[in-house]
């Protein structure tokens, strides 16, 4: 008897529901007495249990480790920080320097710092550092802004910024020049390498041509000699042949 043959008792749905404990009470009432009577269905159910056991041997422990980078407007929208980062990357050096200086000046201005460029060089004085616990903003005469002084400081800061921009541009230009020189020298090297390779190849081919010419000369010489020699040989043979004939006559 073929034990693999599926029994045809019209109980499939009820049996499968019973196997997975999802049978309705009505189905249970039908299935249980049937299983007692039908050996084929009993075997089928036992086989299914066994298959289920085997199926459970394939467990997936690994995780793909997925993380959806969620943003408020979809995956393609970048954050403000990312945009700023991209902008900074794309900005030229002088603009970065200008930005940095402007930021520094702003910070210093907020701190009430004086920037001075005099004969003794560059100097900074910050209110935040100068002011002790005893000194307070309660001294109005010291805190009153002096328009001339502000104008002077502004001019000094402007000069400083201009100078830094100039320096930045100069250094960028030097850097560019150095890169160009490097490229030129690399090109020259490549060029001379190529020329050397070409010269070597030409020499090699010239040598081959010379060898071929020598071969041709030698062959031509041989042929002429052979021809001459064969002619000479033929002539002497004929002569000796004639002599012999004549002698024979």
């Amino acid at each position, binding site marked *: 008897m073929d034990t693999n043959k599926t029994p045809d008792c019209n109980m499939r749905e009820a049996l499968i529901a019973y196997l997975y404990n999802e049978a309705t009470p009505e189905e249970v009432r039908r299935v249980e007495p049937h299983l007692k009577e039908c050996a084929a269905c009993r075997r089928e159910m036992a086989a299914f249990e066994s298959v289920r056991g085997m199926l459970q041997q394939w467990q997936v422990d690994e995780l*793909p480790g997925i993380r959806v980078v969620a943003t408020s407007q979809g995956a393609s929208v970048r954050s403000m920080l990312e945009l700023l980062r991209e902008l900074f990357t794309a900005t030229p050096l002088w603009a970065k320097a200008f930005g940095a200086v402007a930021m520094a000046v702003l910070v210093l201005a907020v701190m009430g710092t004086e920037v001075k460029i005099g004969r003794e060089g560059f100097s900074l004085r910050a209110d935040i550092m100068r002011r002790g616990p005893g000194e307070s903003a309660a001294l109005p005469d010291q805190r009153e802004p002096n328009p001339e002084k502000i104008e002077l400081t502004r001019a000094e800061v402007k000069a400083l910024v201009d100078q830094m921009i100039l320096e930045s541009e100069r250094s960028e230009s030097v850097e560019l020049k150095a890169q160009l020189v490097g490229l030129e020298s690399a090109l020259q090297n490549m060029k001379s390498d190529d020329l050397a390779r070409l010269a070597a190849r030409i020499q090699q081919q010239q040598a081959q041509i010379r060898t071929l010419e020598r071969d041709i000369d030698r062959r031509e010489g041989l042929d002429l000699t052979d021809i001459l020699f064969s002619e000479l040989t033929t002539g002497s043979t004929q002569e000796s042949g004639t002599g012999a004939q004549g002698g024979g006559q």
Partner: protein
Amino acid sequence: MSDSQIIERTLGGEPEAFNILVHRWERQIYGLTLRMLGRDEEAKDATQETFLSAYRNLPKFRGEAKFSSWIYRIALNICNTKLRSRAKIAISIDEQRETTGFELADDSEDLTSNIQQEQVARHVRRALQGLPADMRQVIIMKEYEGLKFSEIAEILGIPLSTVKTRMYTGLSEMRKRLEHLREAM
């Protein structure tokens, strides 16, 4: 926090909350895609696509069905698309022999003691791959995802009786394909 609460938070301006759902469901979805497709890398891609698709379509999720049903349906659609797009290469004779005979008939006595879980898993994997996709997905959802027949019917959008019939037929097929292994065990 329930799935629907996370969805509300995500849609309410906390997109990073969606990662909680990813973390909660990725094992099940990966298990489903791997068993449907049988190939690790493809399954990982399918899992990723499932969550991305779910995230993009989250505003369309009405909450009438459970989130799990919805995401299983997305995953199955992605798997079915991948299966359809695969070249219809007939299983080679060798593969068929492995699927049905498992090369165990000759030395089943030795194998009785040697069969390891890993080997059984490999045979199960191959046998499942040999099943028609409609039976395979029902078996996977029932056996590995532990879904109820009614839930499977809802996900697949088919009658409950069809789900049960497919399950019965699928198990019968698996029984035939794993018969030699069963005897060896």
